[in-house]
C-alpha cells in the first residue's frame, strides 16, 4: 500500500526537533526561576527587592484592599514602601521608639489631648504642586468620611486642622497618645488636588481607583509594572534631596515570585539585593546578611499567638490553659518553626527587647508567668484540677470533660503550621490531646473571627507606637466583641474580665512612662494568671536580609543608620560594589 504519510512523519519529526532548537536559539538559559537578563536595567544602578508582592499588581491605590508594592501597608506598622512613592509624616524606629522625620519635621503633645505636627519646609508633590498641611488634613479626613484601613484613628481623634501651611493640629476625643501617634507615623499622605475629585465620587470610586500613575511626594516614580515585576525609577527632582539626600539606586525593582522558594533562590544567587522573606538557615548563605550577625538574626516585631477559645468547655478553665502553657516546648518552636530566629517565647505580652523593653518587667514574669515545664503541667492537671488520665493517655476533668481539642492555622503558612505541630506534640506528651487542622486561609480566618475554633495561631498587634497597649487590647478587650457566630476583629477567644477595661483605659490615658508601665504591668499579670492566649514565638515585623554582592551599606546592628524595616532611609547610604 502507498505510504503517503511517510512525508507526514518527516514533517512531524522535524516539528519535534524544531521546538528545542528554536528555544535554545533565542531563549536565555535559566534555572528554576532565577533571573539572568533583567529586562535591561543596569545592575549597578538597580536594587532588586522582594517579598512584598506575591500576585500581579492590580492597583497602586494605598486606600484599596490590595495595593501593590510600594503603596501597601497604609496606616499599619511593617508598611511596605514607606517613602518610595508616597511618604508618611514620620518613620517609627522599632528599636528605640524614635520618630525619624520625613514629611514631618517634629511633633509635640502641646496638651495631653492635642498633638501638633510641624511639616518640613519646601515639601512638594512630584507634579510640582506644594505639599501643605491641607494635604495632611485631607488625607486624615478621608478616614472619617469613608471606611478605610486607618479609619479607627477617628475613635480617638475629634478634629484634624491645618493651622497654617506648615502646621497640623490633631485634637483627641479620647486620650490614647500611642494609638494616635501610630496612625500619624504610618499614613501615606495623598495629594488633595488629585484625590478630592475621586473622593467626591464616593466610597466605591475611591476603593476602585487603580491609580496606575501615582503622584507622590517621594524620590521614586513608577516606571513599569507587569505580572512579573514592579519597577521604580528615580524622579527628576525630590523636594527632600537637600535634607535627606537622594537615595543611591536609580532604579528599584521588585520581581514577583510565585513562592518563597523562588525568592530564596534569587537571594542566594545575588539576583535579589534586599529581601523580606523567611529564609531558613540564613546564616549559612554566603554574602547574605541580616540585622544581627548572631542569633536571633532578626529583630522581634510581633508575637504569633496561640489564641484560645475561652468559651469552650474544658478551655474555659484558666487552670487548664495554664497547664497547657507549661506543657509547650517553646525552645523547640524557636528552633524548628522559627529556624532559630527567635528566642524561646516568654510568657509576657510585652516583647522583652527593642522599643517595648522599657515596659517589660522580668520579675513580674518570673512571679506570675510560665515556661516550658511538663512536670509543672502534670502537677496542675493532677493536683489542682484533679483530672484523671484515661486509658488512652488523655486527661478527663472531674466534670467529665475530656481534654481533647483542635488547633488550626491556614494551610501554607509553614512556620505557623510547624508551631502547631510542636504544640500538638508537647501537649500530647503531657496528656492533653490536640489535633491539628490546616484549612485554607479564608476558612481559617472566618473560623477564628466567628469563634468557631478551639485554638488557633493568629496575628496580634506588632511593635509600634501603640504597642504594647494595642496587643493587650487585641487579646483581652471584650468591648465591641460580638458573641460566637458573628465576626469579631479582636479578642477572638471571647475572653472577658471586668478588671481589663479600666486598666486598658488608664494605660491608654497615661502621660508618663512610669504610669504606663505600672498599668501595663497589671494587665500583664492578669494575662499571665488567666492565660487567654499563649505567646508561641517572636517574629520580626518584616524579615530584613540583604545580599552584599552588588550593594553595600545596608543598615545593620553594627551600623544602625536606619531601622530594619524597609523604609526609604535604608537606601540613603547604599553604595554599589
Amino acid at each position, binding site marked *: 500500500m502507498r505510504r503517503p504519510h511517510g512525508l507526514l512523519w518527516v514533517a512531524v519529526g522535524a516539528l519535534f526537533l524544531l521546538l528545542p532548537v528554536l528555544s535554545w536559539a533565542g531563549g536565555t538559559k535559566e534555572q528554576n526561576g532565577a533571573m*539572568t537578563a533583567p529586562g535591561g536595567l543596569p545592575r549597578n544602578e538597580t536594587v532588586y527587592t522582594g517579598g512584598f508582592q506575591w500576585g500581579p499588581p492590580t492597583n497602586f491605590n494605598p486606600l484599596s484592599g*490590595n495595593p501593590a508594592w510600594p503603596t501597601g501597608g497604609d496606616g499599619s506598622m511593617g508598611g511596605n514602601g514607606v517613602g518610595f512613592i508616597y511618604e508618611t509624616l514620620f518613620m517609627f524606629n522599632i528599636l528605640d521608639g524614635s520618630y525619624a522625620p520625613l514629611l514631618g519635621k517634629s511633633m509635640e503633645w502641646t496638651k495631653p489631648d492635642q498633638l501638633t505636627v510641624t511639616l518640613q519646609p519646601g515639601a512638594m508633590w512630584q507634579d510640582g504642586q506644594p505639599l501643605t498641611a491641607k494635604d495632611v488634613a485631607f488625607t486624615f479626613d478621608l478616614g472619617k468620611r469613608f471606611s478605610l484601613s486607618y479609619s479607627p484613628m477617628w475613635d480617638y481623634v475629634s478634629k484634624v486642622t491645618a493651622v497654617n501651611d506648615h502646621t497640623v493640629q490633631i485634637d483627641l476625643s479620647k486620650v490614647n497618645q500611642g494609638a494616635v501617634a501610630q496612625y500619624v507615623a504610618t499614613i501615606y499622605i495623598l495629594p488633595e488636588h488629585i484625590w478630592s475629585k475621586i473622593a467626591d465620587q464616593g466610597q466605591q470610586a475611591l476603593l476602585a481607583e487603580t491609580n496606575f500613575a501615582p503622584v507622590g511626594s517621594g524620590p521614586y516614580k513608577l516606571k513599569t509594572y507587569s505580572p512579573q515585576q514592579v519597577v521604580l525609577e528615580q524622579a527628576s527632582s525630590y523636594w527632600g534631596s537637600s535634607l535627606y539626600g537622594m537615595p543611591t539606586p536609580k532604579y528599584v525593582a521588585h520581581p514577583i515570585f*510565585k513562592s518563597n522558594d523562588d525568592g530564596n533562590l534569587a537571594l542566594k544567587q545575588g539576583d535579589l539585593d534586599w529581601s523580606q522573606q523567611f529564609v531558613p538557615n540564613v546564616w549559612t548563605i554566603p554574602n547574605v546578611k541580616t540585622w544581627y550577625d548572631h542569633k536571633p538574626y532578626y529583630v522581634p516585631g510581633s508575637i504569633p499567638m496561640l489564641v484560645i477559645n475561652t468559651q469552650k468547655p474544658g478551655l474555659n478553665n484558666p487552670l487548664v490553659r495554664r497547664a497547657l502553657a507549661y506543657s509547650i516546648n517553646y525552645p523547640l518552636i524557636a528552633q524548628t518553626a522559627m529556624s532559630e530566629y527567635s528566642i524561646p517565647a516568654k510568657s509576657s505580652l510585652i516583647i522583652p527587647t527593642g522599643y517595648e523593653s522599657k515596659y517589660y518587667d522580668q520579675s513580674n514574669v518570673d512571679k506570675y508567668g510560665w515556661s516550658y515545664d511538663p512536670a509543672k503541667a502534670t502537677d496542675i492537671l493532677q493536683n489542682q484540677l484533679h483530672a484523671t488520665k484515661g486509658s488512652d493517655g488523655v486527661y478527663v476533668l472531674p466534670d467529665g470533660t475530656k481534654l481533647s481539642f483542635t488547633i488550626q492555622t491556614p494551610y501554607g503558612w509553614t512556620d505557623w503550621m510547624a508551631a502547631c505541630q510542636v504544640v500538638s506534640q508537647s501537649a500530647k506528651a503531657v496528656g492533653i490531646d490536640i489535633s491539628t487542622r490546616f484549612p485554607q486561609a479564608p476558612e481559617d480566618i472566618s473560623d477564628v473571627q466567628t469563634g468557631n475554633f478551639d485554638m488557633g495561631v493568629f496575628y496580634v498587634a506588632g511593635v509600634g507606637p501603640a504597642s504594647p497597649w494595642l496587643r493587650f487590647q487585641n487579646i483581652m478587650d471584650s468591648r465591641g466583641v460580638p458573641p460566637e457566630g458573628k465576626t469579631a476583629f479582636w479578642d477572638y477567644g471571647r475572653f472577658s474580665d471586668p478588671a481589663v477595661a479600666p486598666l486598658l483605659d488608664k494605660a491608654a490615658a497615661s502621660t508618663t512612662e512610669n504610669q504606663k508601665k505600672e498599668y501595663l504591668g497589671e494587665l500583664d499579670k492578669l494575662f499571665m494568671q488567666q492565660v487567654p492566649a499563649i505567646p508561641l514565638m517572636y517574629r520580626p515585623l518584616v524579615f530584613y536580609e540583604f545580599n552584599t554582592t552588588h550593594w553595600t551599606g545596608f543598615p545593620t546592628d553594627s551600623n544602625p543608620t536606619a531601622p530594619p524595616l524597609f523604609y526609604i532611609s535604608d537606601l540613603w547610604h547604599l553604595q554599589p560594589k
Partner: protein
Amino acid sequence: MANPFRKYIVNKLVWYVIAFFVAITLNFFLPRLIPGNPVDVLVSQFLRSGGTGAGANKIYQAFIAQFGLEKPILVQFGTYVLNIFRGNLGQSFSLYPARVTTLIGQALPWTLALQLPAIIIGWILGNMLGALAAYKRGVFDRTLFVSSLAMSSIPYYAFAIILLYLFAVVIPIFPAGGGYSFGVTPSLSLHFIGDALTHYTLPFLSLILIAIGGQAVGMRSMAIYELGSDYVNYSTGLGVREERILAFVFRNAMLPQVSGLALSLGTLVGGALITEIVFSYPGIGTLLFNAITANDYPLIQGVTLLIIVGVLLANFLVDIAYGYIDPRIRTARMGER
C-alpha cells in the same frame, strides 16, 4: 430534507439552552458553598502587612459593600444573570479591581497555545498510528498497542511531574516552571519567543504524548472492528481495490474519533489544570485554581462560564456534524416522527 434536519437542530438547541441555564445557576451557587468569605482574603493580606483588628474591621465592612455581598442572595443572582447577557463578568475580588474579562483574556492565549497544538497534533498522530497498527498488525501493532495503552493510562498530571523531575531537576535541560523567564517582558521578539518556547516544551510534551497514546488505542480498536466487518469481506471478495475499501473503513472508524476531538476542544478551555499548576504555567488552569483558593466568586464564575460555553458549543456542533455526516442518524430521527 431540509425541514426535518432543521427540526432536529431546533430540538437539540432547546435542550442546550436549558442545560446552559441550569449550568449558570449551579455556577453561581456552588462557589458560594465553599466555606470562608472572599473578603477574608483581603483582610488576611491586611493583617499580614501589619494591620490591626480595628482596621481589619473597616476593610471588611468596606469591601463587603464594595462587592455587593450584603445584598440578598437572589438579588445578587439576578444581577449576575443580567450581567452575563450584557457581557459583563464583573471585577475579580482577590485581584480587585481587575476585570474578569481582562484576566481571562491574559490567561487564555497561554492555555490555547499549550492545548490546541497538543490536542490537534496528538489527534492526528494518534489516529495515524492507530490506523497503521490495525492495518499492519504483527510486531508493529503489538509494540504500539502496549506502549499506547501504557501512555494513555498514566494520568496526565503524574506524567507532568515525572517529566518535570527528569528533565528539569535531574537533568536540567528545561526550566522548572513559568511561562517565561523573570525580567523578560512579553514582546514579539525572537528572544521572548525563544524563551517562551523553552518553558513551553515540557508541558506540551506531557500533554501530547498522552493524547497520542489515547487516540492510537481508540483508533486501532475502531479500525480493527471495521476491518473485520461484512462489507469489507464482501468487497474484498468482489475484487474491489484495497485503497477504496480502506477509504471507507477509515471514514467509518473516524466517527467516534471526531466526536472525541470536538469534546476535547470544548473542554480545553478548562485548561489542563494540574499540568499548569505543576509547571506554574500562567494559563486558565492556574487562574481558576487561585480563584478557588481565594473564594473569588466573579473569577470562578467567569472561568466556569467559559468552560460551560465551550463544552456546550462543542457538543452541539458534534451533534450537528454527526447528523450531517452519518445519514443513519438523520433517518432514524425522521423515522421517529
